[in-house]
Each structure stands twice: as structure tokens, then as C-alpha cells.
């Protein structure tokens, strides 16, 4: 041996420590053993590798077998030591009914005569160590004994008789093994499938009870004379081979090999045994039922060859096997009826091969999914196995555990090295591993639960087409209803399932349902783990997330306080939950205390960077962008969001779900700082991604489409904008219903405002009015309502309902009263206020408001923005209305020239036309008609192409201004024809504001006076 005794002393301890770790974390643990001598480390690595290699082999397990020496006697041995009448534990054996690798099976009865019916008494070979077995029997007996299903043979008892003989007492079933039954009765494919469905039902039932069979094979499936399938030996393989040891170890017991024919790859490699293992074995059974053959053709008839095939060979397609069999028909009872060939091709091939995938994750995720596809086949429907939102969530859920397992490595690297530390770390890792195992069990239960929801749906819907049309929402409701019943005795799984359903409701923005489920989750977590349990904090954080959009601000605040307290208690300062908590604290404080909010979000970003969770960094940067946008720090917002976008691009496709929101924010901010092409690109990306990934009716699709539409309209692509907004509104109503309280009114207010600007006043006002009514109903005292009221006010002014408009103005002002005068919402309101006062002919008040609100009469240097252009032009119009024509002309000219100089000129053509209009009006007033003429012409041309030429009162106003130019220049003919156009436009509106009708009347009077 290459090592000496002293070295071995160290190696031996390290080896023991490594053995306690899961296989996959050993390598990183080795890496963390810093100060260890390199030679020793290599030795240790070599030993561990060797151990992994031989762990399941039979090396040195028994003495080798000796060939007989010449002339050895040949008398028989191993005769049955037992005979009928012998008492084993509480049973009297009657008759031997079978023999297998594990031992002999006897029909037996209770010796005390308490129960008359016979049992199948399995007497295990003496090789099964009795003390270990006793402990395991005690542990598993209750679980297995609780399996009560018409297709599962009950386990009545398991124990060790006084003489050390281990025994299992099982329900006595008289029946024929499944394969023999099918061949003897020459069953059709459909009949075979129907029997197999019984098997699947039983296995799914067991999986729901967290029991994996591990040794499914036709000889364990008996069919009674009544045609009922009975599964034997459920969970017994586990009973006999603890700690999920490989089948190899089990089959080698007693030196007598059991069959490997139905073993899954993971049973040969010794990887984790899961429900997918049973799915694989079921696949082999089905394969054999359909073809009469096993899935692999072996070149050599040996165990090794079979192991190789199971691990690496692709099974032949069942239909091909049957085809070949038909080409060269076998003789005897096993011959396969010809019609089977046709039935097998396609669907059934697919179904069988999916169950036989090498990777457990690629097989049917549950036995129910397997069964559903067989049902589909039997019913003549196409085989589904299609993904759905809920499945997606399930995968995500499982994926999270995988992340947890993977991150264990990092824990080791981070901690100090040295022998003692290494041993301590091993303890930690063991805890983790234990937790992962528990979680895997829970995950299985939850997964089955989800599968059951789908199953229940397909049962409840007699019409398969309808079943396929069931929405995720229906399935969720079904799940919420079933959760109590299906998982009543599995509270931890119920907690998980509640989380999963709540998460999905959240995803679908069905907040009220999510809130209810999360409330339930919080109280269940408290019952399970106490009020200080960290699970309670996790539930609270999710609950708070749901409360985000509701008005339950104080509830949310106390929820977050409680979550903070619990996380502090557990010293969870770097956990994912802490990150989410920080993010929510940031969101909650966003409106009131931007500085504090920014602190929280920066902490969250730092936390996720440290945790190397780029997706969460993206989400936190998005939140930061939002907070800074709210705080009017546009540049800051742009920096945060641009970084998020860049990170996100590097994370595709994982980041796809964040694209709609992120790029919408980015579009908003870019638009606000005047980067129009960039904003448009961002909005288009957001909408395209939502449509492609979230689907046509998803909230993200609605939200991104209406943003794109508004942006197009506001940047002078008015027709395309209106079209897009109309599509968004139709989408929202289709997806959410006309009385939806969030999406539909949101789209309506945006769409209504643009319709009114377009000149389609009556429809626009009605649409905006609907939006305001709903908003008022659901969020009566919300400051944001002010902005909506302002928009409705704009419509009312256009429709000559100035006094109602005045009421809106006051209502909006009272809603804004709690906000500081410096709040940007006040400035927004002031702009609308000035517009309203001008429309109502109260020019002096408008001028007061301009100076009071500090509206600007000059453009800032730097890129133009829409809001600024609008504001400066309002100030110019206000000056003109107050008789300051010179001033008005100057301001308007500056705006016009600035736009003309700008590289993004085409996006501002609405403002260019409006600036020209104000300037022209002012110049006419200043008796400078020749200068005014080209401007008025440009305004008419611009507005004709931008607004609705049949309905737009703004266009009529420009036509009147141009007519006035012509009049001043002594060309009444042109003026008359323009008057006719303007009058035609205004005649389309039953009621139109004074601001439009008065100039028309004046023009009319002047032209009449001229005649």
C-alpha cells in the first residue's frame, strides 16, 4: 500500500466524513480541504472514486464459489426446512405457493384463528439481517400497511419470528400473472391497455402516498378471475434494501440474481430512485404486453449485456418489433394477432418510448400523465403531453430545489478549511442532504397532486375538446378545491401546494385568490412550524407581494414587519427571502420615502449580486428604475433599467418572462428623456415578447400593447397609434371582461384621451368616462384618479360641458391635496387646468395658474420631450389668449424652430403643427398676415395628416386661422372655402366647445360683413 499508517489515520477520518455526504457534493468538499497535503488529497480522491465505482458491486461481499473437486458427491441440498403446519410468528403455514430470489412464499393462516382468511406469507431468506430488518420493518410497515386500494394487495404484517425468520404477511391473491393472462386470453391491444390502466391507477395511488414500488414486473401483477389486477409487493424492495441501495445490491442478496429485466437505468447506476423509476418499469411491462418482447435485443445473453443495454441502448420501437414478428411469425400460443401492428404505430410507440427514456426527467412526470396518454389513445384523441402554465410552475418549483442542491458547493468553498472545519462542514452538508430528501418527497406528493388536477379535469369534462379548452384558471380553481381533500394528511405537501397555487394565481394576476391562499398558507405554516418559523416568513413575503396592488397598505406594512422580525431571528441576512423582503420594503416606501426606498433596493441588488443570481439582479434593477422614475430621477432610472436590459439580454431565454415589463419601463423612461427611437424599439420588443411568450390574452400583452399604441400616437404616428390602442382595448375586454377593474379601464383612459385628440370626441369621451367611473368605484380616494379626471375634463371642455369640466378640476385638486405642491402630479394637473381655463375662455385665470404652477415658457437645452413641448406651447397659447401676441409668437417660433432642428423632428410633427398654428394666429393679430400664411398652411397640412380630417375640431381651428390669413390678405374666396370645411367638421359634433365655435362664428360674421 502506498500510504503509511499515520497517513491512513488522517485519510480514514476524511473518508468517513466524505461517505456521509451526497455523492454530488463530495467534489466541492474535497476542493474546500485547503491545507491538506496534496498527495493525501489525491489519495483521498482516488479512494472516493474507487468507492463510487465499486459501491454497488459485489466485490468481496462473499467468498467466491468453488467448482466441485473431481469426484464430489452429488446429493441434494437446500431442501425446504419447513413443512405444512409449522408456526411462523402468529401464522401457521399451509402450502408452498411460490419461490423467488427473496425467499419462499406460503399460503398461511393466523395461528390463533382470529382471522379465517388465508394470507400469503413470504419467508425471507436468512441472509436478510434480522436486526436491521426489524428496524426497517417497524419504520415502513405503517406506511405500506396504509395502502388501501382495490388493485393493491394489502400488507398485513411484517416482522421477525422468534427463531429469527423474517416474514411478510400479504393479502392472499389468487390470480394469473398479467402477461400469462393476456396471452392465455389472447387479449386485444385495447383490452391489454385497459388492464394496464388498472396497474397505473394503483401505482399512482401509491405514489400519492409517497410509496415507490421499485420492483414492478408482470410477475408482481396478478389478474383475478374477475379480471381485476392486483399489485403485489408494494414498497417491499425498499423494505429489503435500505437507503435506496441499488437493485444490484438487492438482487445479489443470497448470491442468487433476481431479474434485471424491468430495472431502470438509475437502479443499475445506483442513482436516486424516484417515482420515475416506477414509470420506467411500467414502460417495460407495457412494452412486453404489446409486443411479447423486452425492449432490448441483446448480443450476448448475460447480465452485463443487459445492464449495458439498459444504460445505453435505444429500445426498438414496439411497432417495429411486432412487424418483424409478423414477418417471421412465431409458433405457439405467444403468436401476436396481426391487427396489433396497425394500432401500435404512432401514438403507442410514442407513449411507450417516453416511459422508457434513460433520463428520469424525460419520462412521464407522473403515472397519471402516463395514464392520461393511454386514455387519450383509447379514446382516439391525440396524445397530449403538452406543457401548460401549471406544469411550467411545477418545473420551476422543482428547479428551485435543484438550485438549492447546486448551491451547496458554494457553501463549502466559502467556509474555512482544515480537517476540523471539513468535518464540521460534512455535518452541515448532511443536514442539507436530509432536507433535500424531505423536499423531494414533498415534491413528489405535490407533483402528483397537480397531475390529479389535470386528471380530475379530464374526468369531469365528458367532452374531450372542452377538456382541452379548460383554462389554467379553471384548473387552478379545481386545485384549490381539491387541496384540502387530496393532501389532508400531508401538511407539508399541502403547504407546498398552497404556495404553488398561490404563485400561479399571482402569475395570472388573480390577486384576490392568491391573497386568500397565502393567508391559508401563513396559518398552516404557523401551525406546522410555530409563529417564529422561517416558513411563516416566506409565506408572509409572498402575501405581501400579493397585497402590493391592493389598498391594504397598513396590512402589508405589518406583514413585512413580521417577516423582517422572523428573518432577523433566523439570521437570514443573505437569503433569497431577505432579498425579496428588501425589494418589497423598497416598493412599499417608493411613494412616500424615495430615499429610504432606494436604500432598500440597493441592498437587495447587492445581495443578489453576492448570491450570483442575475435574474434577481435584473428584477431588483427594474424596481430601482421604477423607484427613481417615480422620484423624477430619469437619468438614474435609465441607468438602472439599461443595466437590467443588458443583463437580461445575456440571460435569454431564462429572462424572457421579464422582457415585457422591463422593456416597457425602459420604453417609458426613454420616452420621458426624449429617446424616441429607443423607446419605440423597447416597446415593440416588450409587446412582441409578451405576445410570443405569454400569449395573446395575457396581462403583459395587454399592458405592452397599449403602451406601444400610446407612444406611437404621442410621437405623431396617430393613425397607427389609434389602431394599436383599439386592438389593446379589444384584447383587454376579451381577456378580462368588460367590467374588469384594472386592465380594461387602464386601456380605456389612454385610448379615450387619444381618440379625443384625434377628433373623435364623443366616442373618446365615453370611453374615458367609463374608465373614470370604474376607477372611482375601485380606488375612490387614490391620487392617481386626478390624472384620469383631468383627461375626462379635457373631453368635457371639447363637448362644451365646461361646468362639469370645472367639477372634475376641483375633484382632481382635492385628490391631490395631500401631495406636496412640488409633486409632479400637481404639475401634470396644472397643465390640464390651464388648458381647461383657456377652453372655458378664462384666460386671466389661466395666466395666473401658469405662473403659480411655474410652467415653463422656454425649452430646456438637451433633447426635446413631449411633455415639455406641450407645456411651453400651452404657455404660448395662454399668452396669445391674454393679448400678448408678440410674446406668444416668439415662444411658438422658438418651439417650431427647435423641432425643425431636431434629428427626431418627425416624431414631433403634432407639436410643430400646433406651434405653427399659434404663431400664425399671433402674427395675424399683429397684422403680419404674409408671414402667417405659410405657417397656417403648414399647420393645416400637418394637422390634416395627423388628426381625423372629418371630425377634428383642432383641424377646423387651423382652417379658420388659415382663412383669417387669406381674409387679411384680401383673398375671401379661399377663406370662404376654408370656412365651409371648418363648418363641416364642426357640424359633425352636436355640442362643441366655445373655443372652437367662437372663431368660426367670428369668421362667418366677417365674411358676411364683407359681402
Amino acid at each position, binding site marked *: 500500500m502506498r500510504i503509511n499508517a499515520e497517513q491512513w489515520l488522517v485519510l480514514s477520518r476524511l473518508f468517513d466524513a466524505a461517505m456521509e455526504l451526497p455523492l454530488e457534493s463530495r467534489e466541492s468538499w474535497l476542493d474546500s480541504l485547503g491545507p491538506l497535503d496534496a498527495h493525501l488529497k489525491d489519495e483521498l480522491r482516488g479512494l472516493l472514486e474507487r*468507492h463510487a465505482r465499486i459501491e454497488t458491486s459485489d466485490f*468481496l461481499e462473499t*467468498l*467466491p464459489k468453488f467448482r466441485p473437486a473431481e469426484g464430489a458427491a452429488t446429493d441434494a441440498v437446500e431442501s425446504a426446512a419447513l413443512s405444512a403446519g409449522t408456526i411462523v410468528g402468529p401464522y401457521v403455514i399451509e402450502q408452498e405457493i411460490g419461490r423467488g430470489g427473496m425467499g419462499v412464499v406460503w399460503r398461511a393462516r393466523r395461528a390463533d384463528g382470529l382471522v379465517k382468511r388465508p394470507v400469503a406469507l413470504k419467508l425471507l431468506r436468512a441472509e436478510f439481517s434480522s436486526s436491521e430488518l426489524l428496524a426497517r420493518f417497524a419504520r415502513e410497515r405503517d406506511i405500506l400497511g396504509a395502502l388501501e386500494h382495490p388493485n393493491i394487495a394489502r400488507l398485513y404484517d411484517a416482522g421477525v419470528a422468534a427463531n429469527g425468520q423474517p416474514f411478510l404477511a400479504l393479502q392472499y391473491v389468487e390470480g394469473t400473472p398479467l402477461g400469462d393472462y393476456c396471452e392465455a386470453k389472447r387479449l386485444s391491444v385495447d383490452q391489454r391497455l385497459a388492464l394496464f390502466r388498472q396497474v397505473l391507477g394503483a401505482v399512482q395511488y401509491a405514489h400519492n402516498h409517497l410509496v415507490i414500488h421499485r420492483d414492478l414486473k408482470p410477475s408482481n401483477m396478478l389478474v383475478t378471475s374477475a379480471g381485476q389486477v392486483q399489485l403485489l409487493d408494494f414498497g417491499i424492495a425498499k423494505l429489503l434494501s435500505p437507503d435506496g441501495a441499488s437493485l444490484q445490491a438487492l438482487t445479489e442478496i443470497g448470491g442468487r440474481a433476481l431479474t434485471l429485466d424491468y430495472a431502470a437505468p438509475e437502479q443499475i447506476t445506483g442513482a436516486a430512485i424516484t417515482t420515475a423509476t416506477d414509470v420506467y418499469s411500467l414502460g417495460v411491462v407495457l412494452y412486453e404486453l404489446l409486443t411479447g418482447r423486452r425492449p432490448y435485443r441483446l448480443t450476448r445473453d448475460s447480465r452485463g449485456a443487459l445492464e449495458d443495454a439498459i444504460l445505453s441502448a435505444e429500445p426498438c420501437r414496439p411497432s417495429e418489433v411486432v412487424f418483424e414478428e409478423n414477418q417471421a411469425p412465431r409458433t405457439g400460443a405467444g403468436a401476436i394477432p396481426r391487427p396489433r401492428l396497425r394500432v401500435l404505430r404512432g401514438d403507442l410507440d410514442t407513449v411507450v418510448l417516453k416511459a422508457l427514456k434513460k433520463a428520469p426527467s424525460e419520462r412521464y412526470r407522473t403515472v397519471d400523465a402516463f395514464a392520461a396518454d393511454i386514455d387519450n389513445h383509447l379514446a382516439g384523441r391525440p396524445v397530449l403531453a403538452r406543457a401548460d402554465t401549471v406544469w411550467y410552475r411545477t418545473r420551476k418549483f422543482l428547479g428551485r430545489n435543484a438550485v438549492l442542491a447546486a448551491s451547496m458547493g458554494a457553501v463549502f468553498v466559502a467556509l474555512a478549511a482544515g480537517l476540523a472545519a471539513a468535518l464540521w462542514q460534512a455535518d452541515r452538508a448532511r443536514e442539507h442532504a436530509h432536507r433535500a430528501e424531505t423536499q423531494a418527497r414533498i415534491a413528489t406528493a405535490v407533483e402528483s397532486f397537480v397531475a390529479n388536477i389535470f386528471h380530475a379535469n379530464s374526468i369531469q369534462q365528458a367532452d374531450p375538446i372542452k377538456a382541452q379548452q379548460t383554462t389554467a384558471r379553471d384548473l387552478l380553481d379545481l386545485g384549490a378545491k381539491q387541496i384540502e381533500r387530496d393532501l389532508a394528511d400531508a401538511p407539508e405537501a399541502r403547504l407546498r401546494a398552497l404556495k404553488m397555487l398561490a404563485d400561479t394565481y399571482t402569475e395570472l394576476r388573480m390577486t384576490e385568490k392568491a391573497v386568500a391562499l397565502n393567508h391559508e398558507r401563513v396559518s398552516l405554516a404557523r401551525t406546522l412550524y410555530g409563529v417564529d418559523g422561517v416558513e411563516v416568513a416566506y409565506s408572509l413575503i409572498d402575501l405581501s407581494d400579493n397585497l402590493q396592488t391592493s389598498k391594504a397598505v397598513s396590512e402589508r406594512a405589518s406583514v413585512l414587519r413580521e417577516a423582517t422580525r422572523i428573518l432577523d431571528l433566523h439570521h437570514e441576512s443573505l437569503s433569497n427571502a431577505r432579498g425579496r423582503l428588501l425589494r418589497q420594503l423598497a416598493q412599499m416606501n417608493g411613494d412616500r420615502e424615495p430615499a429610504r426606498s432606494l436604500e432598500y433596493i440597493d441592498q437587495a441588488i447587492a445581495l443578489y449580486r453576492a448570491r450570483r443570481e442575475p435574474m434577481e439582479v435584473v428584477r431588483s434593477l427594474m424596481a430601482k428604475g421604477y423607484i427613481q422614475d417615480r422620484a423624477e430621477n430619469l437619468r438614474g432610472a435609465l441607468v438602472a433599467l439599461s443595466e437590467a436590459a443588458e443583463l437580461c439580454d445575456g440571460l435569454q431565454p431564462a429572462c424572457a418572462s421579464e422582457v415585457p415589463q422591463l422593456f416597457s419601463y425602459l420604453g417609458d423612461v426613454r420616452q420621458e428623456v426624449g429617446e424616441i427611437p429607443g423607446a419605440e424599439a423597447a416597446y415593440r420588443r416588450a409587446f412582441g415578447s409578451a405576445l410570443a411568450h405569454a400569449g395573446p390574452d395575457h396581462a403583459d400583452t395587454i399592458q405592452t400593447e397599449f403602451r406601444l399604441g400610446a407612444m406611437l400616437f404621442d410621437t405623431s404616428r396617430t393613425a397607427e397609434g389609434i389602431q394599436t390602442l383599439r386592438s389593446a382595448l379589444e384584447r383587454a375586454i376579451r381577456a378580462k371582461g368588460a367590467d374588469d377593474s384594472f386592465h380594461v379601464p387602464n386601456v380605456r383612459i389612454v385610448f379615450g384621451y387619444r381618440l379625443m385628440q384625434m377628433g373623435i370626441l364623443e366616442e373618446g369621451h365615453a370611453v374615458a368616462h367609463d374608465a373614470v367611473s370604474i376607477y372611482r368605484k375601485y380606488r375612490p380616494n387614490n391620487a392617481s384618479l386626478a390624472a384620469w379626471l383631468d383627461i375626462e375634463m379635457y373631453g368635457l371642455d371639447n363637448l362644451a360641458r365646461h361646468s362639469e369640466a370645472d367639477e372634475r378640476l376641483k375633484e382632481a385638486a382635492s385628490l391631490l391635496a395631500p401631495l406636496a405642491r412640488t409633486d409632479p402630479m400637481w404639475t401634470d394637473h396644472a397643465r390640464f387646468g390651464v388648458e381647461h381655463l383657456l377652453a372655458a375662455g378664462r384666460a386671466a385665470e389661466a395666466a395666473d395658474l401658469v405662473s403659480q404652477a411655474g410652467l415653463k415658457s422656454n425649452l430646456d437645452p438637451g433633447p426635446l420631450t413631449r411633455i415639455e413641448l406641450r407645456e411651453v406651447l400651452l404657455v404660448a397659447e395662454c399668452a396669445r389668449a391674454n393679448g400678448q401676441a408678440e410674446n406668444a409668437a416668439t415662444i411658438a417660433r422658438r418651439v417650431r424652430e427647435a423641432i425643425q432642428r431636431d434629428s427626431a423632428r418627425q416624431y414631433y410633427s403634432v407639436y410643430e403643427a400646433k406651434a405653427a398654428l399659434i404663431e400664425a394666429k399671433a402674427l395675424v393679430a399683429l397684422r403680419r398676415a404674409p408671414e402667417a400664411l405659410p405657417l397656417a398652411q403648414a399647420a393645416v397640412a400637418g394637422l390634416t395628416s395627423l388628426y381625423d380630417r372629418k371630425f377634428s375640431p383642432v383641424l377646423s381651428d387651423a382652417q379658420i386661422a388659415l382663412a383669417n390669413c387669406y381674409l387679411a390678405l384680401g383673398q375671401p374666396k379661399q377663406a370662404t372655402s376654408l370656412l365651409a370645411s371648418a363648418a363641416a367638421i364642426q357640424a359633425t359634433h352636436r355640442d362643441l366647445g366655445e373655443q372652437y365655435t367662437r372663431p368660426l362664428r367670428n369668421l362667418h360674421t366677417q365674411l358676411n360683413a364683407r359681402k
Partner: protein
Amino acid sequence: MGQLTRLFEAARNGQSGAVDQIVALTYRELSDLAHQRLRRAPKITLLDTGVLVNECYLRLVKVGDLDVDDRAHFLGYAGRVMRSIVVDFARERLAQRRGANAPHITVGTDIPDPAAAAEEEVVRVDEALQELARLDPRLAQVVELKYFGGLKSEEIAAALGIAERSVRRDWQKARVLLHGELKP
């Protein structure tokens, strides 16, 4: 008090010759049983030494050579004894086979004769075990009791006076080390 039980006590008290006597006595008993079993074997045979050891124990108790309570002591010696029985048996058979086949072997006597694979293995394990005993005597003892003595973990634990868990850990390590020696 049985003969063996007395010898166990003598051995504990350091009396010279006691151990040799125990081994000799146990050897005789076990060897008879083993050869009887091997002779009767109809075909390829797994020598179930564990069963032999326990049968031997029962017989010694029956004839009064051993007290029932001395099972652990007995098992402790049984491994060693069984080892020498099995190794002797294997060596003997190898010698016979070599003798019979000698004219046919021209080169490469290292090439394992498939017919004698079991015997080869036993002898090589025996040799590797002597190496292992220098590195970690207890590992060697565990292998002796399990591989040669055919004893179960709990019996080994009783024989060595250690926890069953330690037995399992020692067994794992010993197996890895021996594998490195025997199948490098």
C-alpha cells in the same frame, strides 16, 4: 464450564498456549464441517461460512465445550480460523490443479486459470489482508470476519465489541483499499 470457555478466560489472563488451543479446537470443528459441506456440493458451490460458524457454535454449546454467553468470543476466533481453513483449502486445490495441469502450462503462470479463479482470489485476498493489517489491524479483522467468517455486521460488531455502524464504515474502507490492491 466448557473447555473453550475456560480457554477464553485463560487467554484473557494471558496464559500462554491458550489461544493456540482455542484455534486448534475451533479449527478441527469448523474444518470438519466445511469439508463435509464442500464434498456434498453438487455443482459450483458457495461456501456459506457464516452458516458453518453458527452451526459450529451450536454444536460446541451442545457438547458442552462452550457456554452460550461466549458467542462473541467464539465469533472473534472463528473468523481467524475460518480464514485459515478457506485459504488452506484453496491452496491445496491450487496445488492439485497445478499438478494435474503442469505439462500444459508453458508460459505466463500469472494468467488466471478460470477454473481456479475462486481459489486464486482467496489466496490473493489473504495476502492483501496481511498488508492491510499493518495499516489498520481492525479493518483486516472486519474483512476476516465478514469475507472469511461470513458473519453479519451485527455479529462482527459483537465479536469486536464495536458499534455496527463502525463495522459498516470499516468494511467500506477496507473494501476500497483491498480493491486498490487487488484490482489496481
